[in-house]
């Protein structure tokens, strides 16, 4: 079974930190402006649930999860 793909739209991101709080192994924030960055676009299957949760929590609808 392969995991999901994650796409992050940094132009939309408002630096809420919800994704970093929810899935810290997949998301981080840039030092200079707090905007989210992806640590991986293809997280382990063990991360699928938290990545989905992060996408649902993102207030800027900046995270897309592809099967």
């Amino acid at each position, binding site marked *: 079974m392969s995991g999901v793909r994650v796409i992050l739209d940094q132009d939309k991101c*408002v*630096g*809420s*930190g919800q994704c*970093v*709080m*929810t899935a*810290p192994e997949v998301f*981080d*924030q*840039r*030092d*200079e*402006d*707090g*905007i989210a960055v992806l640590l991986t676009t293809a997280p382990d299957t063990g991360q699928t649930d938290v990545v989905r*949760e992060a996408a*649902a*929590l993102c*207030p*800027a*609808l900046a995270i897309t999860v592809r099967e």
Partner: protein
Amino acid sequence: MTSDTVPAFPMARAAGCPFDPPPELHRLQDEAPLSRVRLWDGSTPWLVTRYAEQRSLLADPRLSADVTRPGYPFPAPGRPTGAQKLGFILMDDPEHARLRRMVTAPFAIKRVEALRPAVQKIVDDLIDDLLAGPKPVDLVEAFALPVPSLVICALLGVPYADHDLFQGHSRNLISRSVPADQRGASFRALHDYLDRLLAQKTADPGDDLLSQLVTRVQAGELERSDAAGIGVLLLVAGHETTANMIALGTLALLEHPDQLALLRDGDDPKLVAGAVEELLRYLNITHTGRRRVALDDIEIAGVTIRAGDGLILANDIGNRDPGTFTDPGTLDLTRDARRHVAFGFGVHQCLGQPLARLELQVVYSTLYRRIPTLRRAAALADIPFKHDGAVYGVYELPVTW
């Protein structure tokens, strides 16, 4: 619907239910996701009561937070003019995003987490003072207000010694019962105060957020008055809200002793983090709704919102939507409440949320453990609630132990 059948907003809470949204809001939510309400000035904006529609509309770029646009549902007389805007909270993208990004870095999760020991020390010292001082004591004055004020002062580079000045003006700014001219005067006083601090930081920069704003001004990226506006926004938002969550949260826990016991007798950071989310959901202190105006016609839930229509997205009742939260009227610190809209949703979602969470986690995991016999020192009916404020809470909370 004629205007005299349209219910007035905001509505009153039921007597004896200080933690629950007004019954009328429950009724409107049961009936439909959107309805019309009447404001103080006779205008009839949309009231959005259900969670799903609130999230979808708050994330919709066709809604504007620009308070100067006609149709914006302002809560009281004395709508700010352009020059008076309270930072980027009342602006739209792209200008909103440009300014917000200038101050986002210090609120990043890891930067805020690094402040935990300092916040713990502030909380511990204040509890030492409480325990050494007289009782009963007003928890608002002695604890709930100082915690977030000390934290935001350190972060911004504002001298805490000026707390009477900025706390007083902040209170005026977010109260509906304060006359418009006095609210305006408080805004100008805060703006001038921040402007003076920016001048000091220009001469003598420090390692703080205001000094970073000075650098932006010097680089020509930011107007000096916008810098002061951002300073006002962060100072006001940074202490009033969290202070109310501390005091009202404590009162709610005292009224739900089984829930308080979970925090007092447990030692699990996960439980504490979850408890903070649930208290944010349950109390939803920003209780007069997010305010917006439509820029375009929007079809939603079978109705058409017209361009120029005002909207109030009542996140307090959204957080009690039975379609989203099981048994929403129950305070259950063990539930997963993370999807609440207590910090709003969309591009304006609270910038300070990591800091607010940290402060509340430290407070809720420390206060009741260190003062396990903490209790009210006044009847619930005698406690003055902030029914007239943009932010709900208690004016005073006499406690003893």
